[in-house]
């Protein structure tokens, strides 16, 4: 069995999380030396004590892309001064998640839209190349694009 301890070969590496129910719709996830609280599957409320599962997914995708830019950009000789990604996702039919009888469709994400704002001196052409490479190498982008329509655009901010 593979473990994610030191000395494990890359081919066998598995990432792990252990999620324990806490109370109500709140759970806690443990992963390596970290933990984070998850409140509900998806929330329609203005405020909650913790992010919902769906928000962690959006945040994770954004974090994956942001980290990807930091890894890839230097290889193209591009210096990034600031980077911010705005993400939003829409369920195919949120009523099915709520269990409304007779509703068609499914409660999965239909589309994830993203706006990637980058402040850089690099040309748009070069940034597009970086972005393509980020997509090619991103674990989450490649996982999700097989199941969800990913609609991302780049905005260069002077």
């Amino acid at each position, binding site marked *: 069995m593979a473990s994610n301890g030191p000395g494990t070969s890359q081919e066998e590496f598995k990432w792990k999380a252990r999620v324990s129910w806490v109370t109500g719709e709140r759970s806690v996830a443990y992963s390596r030396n970290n933990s984070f609280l998850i409140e509900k599957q998806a929330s329609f409320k203005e405020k909650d004590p913790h992010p919902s599962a769906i928000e962690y997914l959006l945040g994770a995708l954004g974090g994956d892309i942001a980290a990807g830019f930091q890894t890839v950009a230097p290889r193209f000789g591009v210096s990034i001064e*600031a980077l*911010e990604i705005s993400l939003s996702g829409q369920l195919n039919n949120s009523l099915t998640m709520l269990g409304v009888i007779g509703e068609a469709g499914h409660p999965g994400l239909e589309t994830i839209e993203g*706006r990637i704002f980058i402040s850089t001196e690099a040309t748009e052409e070069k940034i597009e190349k970086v972005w393509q490479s980020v997509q090619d190498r991103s674990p989450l982008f490649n996982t999700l694009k097989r199941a969800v329509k990913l609609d991302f655009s780049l905005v260069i*901010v*002077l």
Partner: protein
Amino acid sequence: MKELPLFPVTTVGSWPRSSTLLRAQRQKQRGQISRAEFDKIADTEVREVLRRQENAEVDLVTDGEQRRDNFYSFVTEKLSGVQLMTLAEMLEVVEDKAGFERILETLDVPAFAISNPTCVGPVKRLSPLTLDEYLYTRSQTDRPIKVTLPGPYLLTRAMWVKEVAQKVYPSKEALGEDVVNILQTEIQELIQAGADFIQLDEPVLTELVFTSGQTRTFMCAALSARADPTEELEFAVSLINRVMENTENVRTGLHICRGNWSQKESTLLSGSYFPLVPYLSRLKVQQLVLEYATPRAGELAALLDSPEIRAGKELGLGVVNPRTPQVEPSEAIVERVREALQYLPAGKVFLNPDCGFGTFSNRPINSGEVASAKLKAMVEAATVLRQEIAAPAQ
């Protein structure tokens, strides 16, 4: 004060920045070039903006706010106790993070691109806010000059990020006292130096009446939460009137708009001036510099049916939309002014765009070419109107 003709044509202040200037601004912010090096580049740009206005035969010119990052946060480097905080930084300290996310989404901008001058210590004037800008402009043109200044309510509201500022001032009102003192000093120095027109920018006043029931809006200069709109408007009137004390020797104006951050009209605020009339009529300013080029601003009657406004105020009539690529035909501008003349005598009407052409330096809403063409259309209209007054049709 220099003499102005009838129907003076002017701008609201800002002009799109060139890529050279934007680059220099970034370098200055990063400490890669000095203030003096930046000013040398900005001097060239100011001369170009003046040349464009002179070529268009604009009567009352501005320096295009070329040295500023935007119409209000530029004061940060001229004051102590104020720090530019990006929205990304503010997100860390404010409670209403979801409200901020709505702002960013509507503006379609990253949090790192919007900075707010935030009070972090006792606010004091380190150097003049605009006097240097005025003096340079004066050295480069013989035309009358308008100087634009962020108004006291705008500055107080923007600086008062409660979570940070209340460590320094017990209340927003206490911060307002220092802001008033700073602007009073600035205005008196501008008057001494011979400025022809001093315009206070207070766009946030519309935010108070057109976003009823919300504690926050997406207007950039109104990021901090507010109290009850009536209280806030009374607070604004008291601040503005104190700043405007002893300004008899200069023409003064107050500019209000409904946002100028996007070419998408649907994201900008909407509503007539009617709910503001009781407050505008009490302001100690000669002129109201207002939007009127889009239906979002409502009808002229909503403002000019008021006897107090008609008797006590000049009107800077917004006759061109600074955000559209189409240049308004001069005939349409003439028609709009004729409508205003049903309420006001000719000597009380100025012609201006609805707002600046480059309110935020990194988000210009038009090109210099289109802006120039719009100025020329206004001048053509003013010429027709002056001829009509000089030789009325039989």
